[in-house]
């Protein structure tokens, strides 16, 4: 149910993002979803890839600072109000979202939202109790 996400510390200097994607491309790792959080000095690139172990290894070899966190992917109808209904559930149950990002499934009419929670297990319980469809890790990494 949980999905592995890789985070990479990126200094604000030109070419650094290209280097990350270059390392992954050379290792034949496919990026499924990504988001970049940036500050004036550094950025954090978060990725969901098809092979996170391999990605971690090649990035470490390339002297990147990486870590691995667990997130979940939630399927949301790709229509107005889709996201809002889920956020309301979380809010009503006082589940704090650290950050989130979204992508649209290649086929079908759903969007996938990746959530990072402080307390992931509690969040999963609440979402399941409210009938929200949490995607398998497998399914997301192979989208």
């Amino acid at each position: 149910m949980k999905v592995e996400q890789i985070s990479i510390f990126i200094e604000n200097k030109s070419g650094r993002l290209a280097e990350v994607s270059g390392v992954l491309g050379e290792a034949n790792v496919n990026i499924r979803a990504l988001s970049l959080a940036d500050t004036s000095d550094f950025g954090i690139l978060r990725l969901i890839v098809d092979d996170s172990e391999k990605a971690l290894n090649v990035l470490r070899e390339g002297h990147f600072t990486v870590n691995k966190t667990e997130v979940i992917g939630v399927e949301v109808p790709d229509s107005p109000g889709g996201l809002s209904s889920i956020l309301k559930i979380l809010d009503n149950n006082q589940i704090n979202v650290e950050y989130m990002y979204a992508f649209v499934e290649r086929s079908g009419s759903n969007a996938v939202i990746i959530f990072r929670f402080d307390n992931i297990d509690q969040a999963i319980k609440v979402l399941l109790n409210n009938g929200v469809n949490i995607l398998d890790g497998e399914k997301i990494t192979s989208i």
Partner: protein
Amino acid sequence: MIWNDDFETLPREAIESLQLRRLQQTVERVYATVPFYRDSFDRAGVKPRDIKCLADLKRLPFTLKKDMRENYPYGLFAVPLEQIVRIHASSGTTGKPTVVGYTKRDIETWTELMARSFYAAGAHKGDVIHNAYGYGLFTGGLGAHYGAERIGASVIPMSGGNTKKQLMIMQDFGSTVLTCTPSYSLFLAEVAAEEGIDIRKLNLKVGILGAEPWSEKMRQEIEAKLNIKAIDIYGLSEILGPGVGIECIEAQNGLHVWEDHFLLEIIDPDTQEVLPDGEKGELVITTITKEGIPLIRYRTRDITRLTREPCICGRTHARIDRLSGRSDDMLIIRGVNVFPSQIESVLFNIKGIEPHYQLLVDREGTLDTLEVLVEVDEQTFSDEVRKLQQLSGLIQKQIKDLLGVTCKVRLVEPKTLARSEGKAQRVIDKRGNIST
């Protein structure tokens, strides 16, 4: 104008015979009263009676800042504490400051030398001296204050900070002489401009500026922006405080150091050989009248040159060049001594931080800036921006708490800061142009 004609214009031979007598007395006294000197003289195989001429000075061992720290707080005092009437301290590398004690006569000497310095800078009775050096453990505020009172000027004990209020007082009280760091004088000018005050039109005529290295270029800028004469003053708390040396307003060419109280040498910092006049090297000072904490051959780490050529002002005392740097890695940032090792100690105490860092020193507008580059490793790295910002905030706060200097912390990727076989380049000082 000259404050003390008798001493300030003594012929060289008279200065030198006075120096020899005072040196001999000082050496006798420290050998008898300070165990540190007895040990170091004995190790060097030299006795007080071996000092027969000024050239014998070089037989005596050096005193280092480290020796002061190792004898913290009172170990180098040459008189019982009950004779000490004032204690000052400067920042040190390990959190322990360097402590200096003054007897009543030392305060008198200091006051006299600051009075000479004010006169040399063109200040006298009738002036309103706006003293923006910090009052407190730092020697700047009180040192300038006593000298200013001695010449009969009206002193405003402003201390540092609160720039808008400084400007108001400057306008309303008609300050004519400003004493502060060179960078603060430019900052005052900047804030004045923002406040719509034409600082050039105020009564200020002279700035007596010191406590940090500054360039000739910066002098021109200060003189133009504030419409004053900018005079360089030299001092260090170990030796006395402000007033060890000062430029005369007549020549503004080198700082007269009061040779009836100090012996000057320039050495090669690597070989420790004494260099002839005119050659650039590290300034070494011996105090020959100080009672509380006399220092023998104190290595100042300041790089300069010495000339004993006559000066147009009539003073016969030797002059040193404007300081062109330091022979060790101490940084002076906004007048505060900062050692890279202090920042290192902060980083070492924060869990998970790699002990690799670099300091970038620069000058933005008129103020020194310090940026600390710290490597993030996998233990400290988080996928949450907030946590990384907390980390840099924590580093910034601890550095501020220890040094009193606000810095910017920038997190960088591991292994991006240069490693080197020998001494890592911990410091990149971009202020440049510090020398003449």
